[in-house]
């Protein structure tokens, strides 16, 4: 009987060692909430271009960089729109809560808070995992009425009215 258990233990140890040998090294990866906090901290001392490249998805960088670097009068309103998008956290003066959902290479971060006029607002941010870093792909900002409850669950599928 002792011999029988010994075989099982040896076999189990063998599988464990094989498992350890084939497992890929785990890298520490910040979650979208961590990346968002870093993003807020970078707003005041980073250019629009730097913020776009470091924190936004490849698709948004491709779309936005040409607009940001075109200083012509005709492009002024387009550029303002991209700058507003990049500096969207400025809409929220106080953060009340942050919740995130991560599914594979996509995530949704919900940030709730208030504007500088004490208006409640929620921001849902879809993130994409690109180059092992969470990148912002879009932003949904909703200003809440006084009688509207503050959501607690991230929802990046906001429907257009």
């Amino acid at each position, binding site marked *: 009987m002792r011999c029988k258990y010994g075989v099982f233990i040896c076999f189990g140890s063998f599988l464990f060692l094989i498992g350890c040998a084939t497992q890929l090294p785990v890298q520490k990866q910040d979650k979208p909430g961590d990346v968002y906090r870093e993003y807020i901290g970078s707003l005041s001392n980073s250019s629009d271009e730097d913020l776009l490249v470091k924190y*936004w998805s490849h698709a*948004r960088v491709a*779309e*936005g960089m040409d607009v940001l670097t075109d200083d012509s009068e005709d492009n002024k*309103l*387009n550029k*303002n*729109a*991209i*700058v*507003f*998008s*990049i500096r*969207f956290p400025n*809409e929220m003066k106080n953060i009340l809560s942050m919740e995130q959902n991560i599914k594979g290479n996509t995530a949704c971060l919900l940030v709730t808070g208030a*504007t*500088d*006029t004490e*208006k409640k*607002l929620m921001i849902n941010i879809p993130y994409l995992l690109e180059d092992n870093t969470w990148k*912002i*792909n*879009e*932003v*949904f*900002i*909703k*200003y809440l*009425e006084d009688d*509207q409850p503050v959501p607690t669950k991230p929802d990046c599928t*906001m429907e*257009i*009215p």
Partner: protein
Amino acid sequence: MASDIKLKITIAKLIELSIDENKSVAMKIVRSKGNFRVTVDQDGNAKLTGKAGIIAFNGNPVLEELGAAVKYISISFGGNDNGTVKYTGSFKVGFATLVVSGSFDIEKLVLGCSGILCVAARALKDRSRVLRDRELQGIMQ
């Protein structure tokens, strides 16, 4: 001015522009008990749609006041209860979608349209804009 207030004033002005385009049909639409909708594309082509008809109008004068390019605007109105209309507006600006909602007294809003042009439409052309913006801010809750 906070972004949400700016967006609400934009919604009021779009209604006023539609009234200036076709007062009789626009009044029927906005005073009806049914739902109605305003949409604007990135070129400023705007539409007021309701059971009483459709009005196409130029939304550019209002879009220019926002100070940033808008890819589209979609506003749904409904629940006309004793003249109080509820609305939810969605504005796509760059990579961001901004949503505001609230309610307003339709009669207070159209009161500014008793002349040939609505007050907001006139104000787009003169210096009384700031004054009218303040009035609209009070109407759009």
